[in-house]
């Protein structure tokens, strides 16, 4: 019951956040110079045509009026229509969002096993050979630009070896897995080192705690202490960082989506910003914000499960 109330409160708190996000995005887009209509009709349109279309979309209204119209529609569950494609924003989002979500989940799925394995391995013998090697690889992984790595992967695994598709999303679960493997792998290489470092230092911190000594002196095996005490206690800080990274991955999918021609939210967002497709940018930002809020909420709930001291 307490948990339910906590969730309800958090969702309620999300409303002003979303409102704030929408105001900021709207203001930023309105303040960005550039004309969506010109980009819409192509370069040869006459000024009369452009004026007519501007009028049709209400783009000649004062900015405040435009915002309140937008807000009114939003409250009714209407995200508006894309200026460029003349289709509902919700349709564009429902077309692109699952792709990015799949990619993010896939990345997480690929990320977790190596993070845990490598962190535990390097924490077991701090400054040992394995630890040093993992650290070096981590620095490399962080230092290599994602787009460059993605490009190399695409050329090598896609063109030279022909193992994986280098573009698109495919139809059906099996194809999704195959098509998004390289994008997920490219992203993973950047995420893993960050999480390994965090988890490693948390593990080391915990291993030096008094309770470990107590456990060992009571005759518990090293493995058991590690599994039942050290590890769960170390996961929390990593989990929080992980939430931030997931939120970042959602927004930061732009690069891998571009290199691998994946039709996801990153592509939609960038294209819409470039085309000044105001309502799509608005809608996509709101969806990103909402997702971030939900991920944070989920992390808090999971934290409470892992560590009862963390109260929801």
């Amino acid at each position: 019951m307490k948990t339910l109330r906590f969730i309800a409160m958090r969702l309620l708190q999300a409303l002003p956040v979303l409102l704030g996000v929408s105001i900021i995005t709207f203001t930023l887009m309105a303040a960005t110079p550039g004309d969506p209509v010109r980009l819409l009709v192509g370069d040869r349109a006459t000024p009369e045509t452009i004026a007519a279309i501007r009028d049709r979309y209400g783009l000649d209204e004062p900015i405040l009026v435009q915002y309140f119209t937008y807000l009114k529609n939003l409250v009714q569950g209407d995200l508006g229509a894309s200026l460029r494609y003349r289709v509902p924003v919700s349709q564009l989002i429902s077309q692109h969002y699952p792709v990015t979500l799949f990619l993010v989940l896939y990345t997480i799925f690929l990320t977790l096993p190596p993070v845990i394995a490598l962190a535990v391995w390097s924490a077991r013998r701090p400054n040992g050979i394995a630890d040093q090697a993992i650290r070096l690889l981590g620095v490399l992984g962080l230092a290599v630009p994602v787009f460059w790595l993605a490009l190399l992967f695409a050329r090598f695994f896609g063109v030279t070896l022909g193992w994986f598709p280098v573009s698109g999303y495919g139809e059906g679960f099996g194809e999704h897995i195959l098509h998004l493997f390289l994008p997920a792998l490219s992203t993973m290489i950047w995420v893993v080192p960050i999480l390994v470092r965090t988890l490693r230092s948390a593990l080391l911190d915990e291993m030096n705690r008094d309770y470990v000594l107590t456990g060992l002196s009571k005759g518990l095996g090293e493995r058991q202490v590690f599994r039942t005490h050290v590890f769960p206690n170390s996961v929390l800080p990593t989990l929080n960082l992980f939430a931030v990274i997931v939120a970042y991955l959602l927004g930061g999918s732009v690069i891998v989506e571009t290199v691998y021609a994946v039709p996801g939210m990153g592509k939609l967002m960038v294209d819409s910003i470039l085309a000044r497709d105001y309502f799509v940018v608005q809608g996509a930002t709101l969806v990103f914000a909402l997702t971030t809020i939900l991920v944070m909420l989920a992390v808090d709930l999971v934290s409470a499960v892992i560590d009862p001291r963390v109260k929801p």
Partner: protein
Amino acid sequence: MKSKGTTLTAAALMLFGTSLSAQDVIRIASPNKVTTLDPIASAAAGNIEAFGQLYARLLRKDRDGQLQPGLAESWDVSEDGLTYTFELRDAKFSDGSEITAEDVAFSLNRVAKDEGSAYPAAYAPVKEFTAVDEDTVQLTLEYPSAPMLSYMEIFNAGIVSKDDLEERGEEAFASDPVTSGPFMVESWKPNDRLTLSANPNYWREGYPRLDGADLIEVSDDNARSTMIMAGEIDVNRGVPWAQIEEINGSGKAKVVLEPSTVVYGVMPNHDKPPFDNLNIRKAAAMALNREAITKAVTLGNATVANSTLPNALKFHDESVSPPAYDPEGARALLEEEDAVGTEVTLMITPSAEQIATLLKAQWDAVGFKTTVERVDAGLWWSKLTDGDYQVTSSWWYNETEDPDLAARWAVCGACGNRSYYTNYNNERVNELTEAALRERDEQKRGEMYAEIQKISTEELAQIPLYYSPFANGYATNVKGLTLTPSLQWTLEEAELADE
């Protein structure tokens, strides 16, 4: 054992993608977006490329660029050049309904007169299109227009179904239209791909030869190159010069340089100092080694431009030329104008980065002080149309090989867009543009366009840099596919050969 193997193979096929099963569907990846399927609503490249597949026009062009009967079986032009009568053939829309004279008149009046028509320039002389009877359409003009017939072939002259558009409304039509061209819409995922399937009711028997086509939008040049080398697409629209060799070397595809009407140039703002001064424009032109720029940017794949109008157009005049490369002369001109050290701001979009570097180096070498201002396409257009720039670099193309639209677009100051928003305005050029449209004697027209080119090149309406061909990559099994200078894929005649 055998059945197990088959099952495994089938499973592998299911898992490992569509490329094995969809061989009669051609996959074209282009950086240009399809944003609407309504042929009058946009004149952006991606849409133009799609409209041609969806809508048949009264006339069509053959491989040699000659006008051929399209939906119109025959036509007749009156003595005074003011009335055109088209006889329609029996043809059907993709939903099986007849294409009538009523549909044709409706479609073409819409292009010419609708306020939402994105590119009505070609149809300015049109008084009206009328359906005389079921199979006859008459076009009446306010004044003669020599290239009018060729305008019955361009991208926005596609015939749409009047009933479909009126019944379902413009919005629904613009995303899922009944079509008259070789293909119809199977599905459209905006911002991703347009999937076409063959229109079984298309009037040309035996065409299209393909079952369908996927027009996939891929903005990243590298991604498209990787895709064609990995065999995931059949056509790569727009191969960057630097990647031609790699693609050719892959053995999977070949890059073909196809004639286009594209011209790259430097656009000075004639309304703002210092480029309102002809001597300064001359100095800017003389400072540029255009041969070297062309070679450096296009790796020798383009031709140095000699005129303000593209060389693929009719009546192109080889004899005109902008001032030759002469840095000392440029410096002298600047000194004469007391303009050494003049600060100029060159506004560019990311695609012109390379050109901008060369322009800046060569201008600065003769005494300009150039600042490069980088903006995105949205801002570029709004600053350009507001005249809020000193000089920029850009490119443009023409949909027909008749120079009328090109002259109107690029050098006519009284034709609505102030000479591509450069504010270049020469009375004589304006007069000639109108006179050449009305003139029906080919030789006289040729002389008029020669004079237009001479004046506008001498006055440096724009500083022409190079005429660029299209560089498209085609997988080795693609046959019969080209991109015409008017941005139309010849998809209806294309085939995918078995390999």
